[in-house]
């Protein structure tokens, strides 16, 4: 389907480009948000990515899927604006070495809505690349190989980032939930 619309756009039917905007805007926004952690910055990054994709569509050779190629542009744009704004989060490595999933008892403490709130908060508190790795692997459900293609990271780099991201999330959730416990009791 993507190939058909690519051909249409290249033949001069620019309205056919709306298909790509409609089809991929949510995933692209999700990825940009995980890096930039701000809805306006994420929107701007995705918009810029669409313009770049339109400009470079003639160079797209179809070796990978259009979505892979496009999400790579989105991620590059998001990382670029994150760097420009000096947003890359530095977290001192005070994370607990190994926290078992069982020790994050999120279900026992808070309701479903609160859960979503705390998870979003924890995602915002972890470094951009780690949040991006979690989003790609657990939310968008890409394989490590696909993540490698989209981000340009190596396989081992992806695995290390995922490991660190999990650690960071456990740490953040523990901190947030221990505060919640103190408030409750």
């Amino acid at each position, binding site marked *: 389907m993507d190939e058909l619309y690519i051909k249409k756009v290249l033949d001069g039917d*620019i*309205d056919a*480009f*709306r298909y790509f*905007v*409609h089809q991929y*805007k*949510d995933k692209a*926004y*999700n990825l940009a*948000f995980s890096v930039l952690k701000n*809805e306006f910055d994420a*929107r701007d990054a*995705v*918009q810029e990515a*669409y*313009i770049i994709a*339109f*400009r*470079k*569509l*003639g*160079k797209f050779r179809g070796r990978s899927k259009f979505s892979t190629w496009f999400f790579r542009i989105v991620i590059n744009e998001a990382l670029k604006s994150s760097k420009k704004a000096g947003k890359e989060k530095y977290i001192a490595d005070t994370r607990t070495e190994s926290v078992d*999933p069982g020790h994050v008892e*999120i279900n026992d403490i808070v309701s*479903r809505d609160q*859960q*979503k709130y705390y*998870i*979003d908060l924890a*995602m915002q508190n972890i470094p951009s690349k780690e949040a991006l790795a*979690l*989003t790609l692997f*657990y*939310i*968008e459900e890409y394989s490590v190989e696909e993540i490698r293609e989209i981000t340009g990271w190596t396989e081992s780099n992806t695995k290390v980032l995922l490991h660190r991201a*999990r650690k960071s*999330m456990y740490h953040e959730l523990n901190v947030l939930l221990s505060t919640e416990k103190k408030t409750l009791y």
Partner: protein
Amino acid sequence: MEKNNNHDRFFRELLSDSSREMPFSDFEDEVMAEIRMEYEKKFSGRRNIRLSWLFFILGMLSGIATVFVMSFYSANQPFAFISDNLLPVGIVFICLTIILFAEKLVKISFRRDNH
């Protein structure tokens, strides 16, 4: 291995509701407006390149014509100083201008990211 699977299961469940959707309802229209502007810019750029070629060729022909006219008049005595002094300078100037502008025009016209 099993520990990793536990982590994965836990995280998949944890993040299952965390997917976000574009919250700006006018996003598609805004992007398409930008794309249209980009498309028009591309075509106005192409039109300008065509005009540049036209005026470049006209200028080149006028330069050559001027050189011919000047060399024709140089046969007459009152204009002899022109052929001796100014004509070689004029020819060098026209040649340099042609080379420089031709190089720039070729670069702009055949740029790969002209899209």
